[in-house]
């Protein structure tokens, strides 16, 4: 599978300009001799991340966005089939989400393969997502032409349980569209927030034997610099290619899905986890308080 990762630098709120820029990048990629199979773009690609109340003015319905992207891909000269991933603010009948679209574009048609709605909405410090957005309620893996995948948007991927569940559900590729405002100058070499991302993503790839594909938004938004740093990590934990924090870039890499089997055979942690997970999950200490009380009542002798 030939993968492209678009590290996009949007103009805040200017959807028309950002679509034109994305189309230009699509055209550049479509012109390569070896066609791309999958092109992944970051969270909030067409608008920028920090929108506050403007999110209601700049959200798309998933069908509308899918048609728009398919048309842009074709106009860019993409006559061949491609799968496109892109993070966007979603308007679903007046309920708003931070979502990511997985779209298949054929030579004359297109269809949505999956829409993931971000489940962990950061609402602390500089972040204020849950003030404006509703959270997704389900993490699903989904089948694509290249195998089973899952989408995790930004903070979704900071909770180790999320990639774990995605892998248990069969995902072989974790796609992580993200927008991460950089912070921390003490580490040396890279921002502390970037190093944290690299560490967690690499640990997921190794533990579960999955490819991790991270697409980071770039550019400054009101003083907050988005840290790009897009990267592709193989199931052995090796970073195959990565971009710097600043500026727009495209990563290009050929992925061998068969590496997943080799990695998992050598380090069968996912198999071990599948066996043990029911014992871990069906533990009444993990149940919400109200459910535990219900369980306790049910167990009382009559």
């Amino acid at each position, binding site marked *: 599978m030939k993968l492209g990762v678009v590290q996009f630098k949007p103009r*805040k709120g200017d959807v028309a300009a950002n679509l034109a820029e994305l189309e230009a990048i699509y055209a550049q990629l479509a012109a390569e001799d070896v066609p791309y199979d999958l092109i992944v773009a970051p969270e909030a690609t067409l608008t920028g991340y920090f929108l506050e*109340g403007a999110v209601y003015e700049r959200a798309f319905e998933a069908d509308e966005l899918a048609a728009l992207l398919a048309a842009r891909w074709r106009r860019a000269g993409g006559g061949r089939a491609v799968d496109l991933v892109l993070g966007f603010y979603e308007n679903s009948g007046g309920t708003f989400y931070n979502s990511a679209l997985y779209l298949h574009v054929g030579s004359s048609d297109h269809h949505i393969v999956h829409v993931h709605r971000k489940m962990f909405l950061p609402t602390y410090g500089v972040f204020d997502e849950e003030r404006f957005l509703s959270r997704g309620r389900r993490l699903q893996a989904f089948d694509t032409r290249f195998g089973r995948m899952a989408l995790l948007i930004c903070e979704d991927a900071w909770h180790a349980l999320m990639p774990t569940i995605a892998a248990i559900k069969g995902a072989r590729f974790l796609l992580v569209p993200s927008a991460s405002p950089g912070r921390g100058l*003490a*580490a*040396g*070499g890279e921002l502390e927030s970037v190093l944290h991302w690299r560490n967690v993503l690499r640990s997921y790839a190794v533990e579960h034997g999955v490819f991790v594909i991270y697409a980071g938004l770039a550019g*400054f938004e009101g003083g907050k*610099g988005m840290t790009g740093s897009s990267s592709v990590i193989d199931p052995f934990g090796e970073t195959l290619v990565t971009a710097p*924090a600043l500026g727009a870039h495209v990563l290009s890499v050929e992925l061998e899905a068969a590496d997943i089997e080799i990695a998992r055979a050598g380090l069968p942690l996912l198999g071990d986890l599948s066996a043990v997970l029911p014992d871990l999950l069906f533990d009444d200490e993990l149940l919400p308080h109200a459910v535990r009380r219900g369980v306790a009542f049910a167990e009382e002798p009559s």
Partner: protein
Amino acid sequence: MTVPVIAAAPPGAPSLQIDTELASTWLQAFLRDELLERRKIGHAVIGLSGGVDSAVVAYLAVLALGAANVTAVRMPYRTSSSDSLEDARAVIDDLGCRERTIDISAAVDGYLQFEPEADGRRRGNVMARTRMLVLFDQSAKLGALPIGTGNKTERLMGYFTWHADDSPPVNPIGDLFKTQVWQLARHLGVPARVVGKPPSADLEANQTDETDLGITYLQADRILSLMLSGYGDDRIVARGFGTDEVRLVRGRVEGTHWKRHLPTTAMLSNTAINEFYLRPVDY
């Protein structure tokens, strides 16, 4: 037989060390994005006081935009130290940027002649606000953007004139403590005479910041760093700081929250600006 014990070092003063190369790269990108890409403005105007903060901003701006696209404005008042003027000159000469020297004495005195009883604090504020007026007007004249030079320490301690020093729309160093500005200054090659001298607002003769504040910047920065990270006073004192200096810093921060905000506006509707009607600055 005893087993060797490897004890963790007790927590001490926080390190404020930064990767200065990374900071420089990041802040140049910030300035280019804010001026060239977002605002389509290719020229920066910086009030150059002779101190380290404005010098660092001037070096960053020249790296980001080029020396021909940066105008340093020296704005002495008749009581300003001549050393300040010369220190600013050393920066201009080193950078080769454009420059202008505008003596603000006549403007300041033109108003203060009606207020002969004004004390040093009021006179200092009039000077700071006159400099703000000059910077904005020079920017309008040049089609440029004024760049702010306030550091995190003075912002937190409220040690600045409201709607004067904090007024430029873009500030690259406002999230760096003073001691971090010094580190960055050395990395950028700011002349040693500027980096090494005691910081001063130079609004009154022989004034120094550390005397005004009642604490050294190094101590203040360490305490501020812990305080902003959520440490209570007891835990800060337990790390080796004095009760009095912790109380002093806490008092200055908590007494000046208003200085870090826009004016308080009476809210009367469901569409109050910045309360209900929320749009980011770059939208």
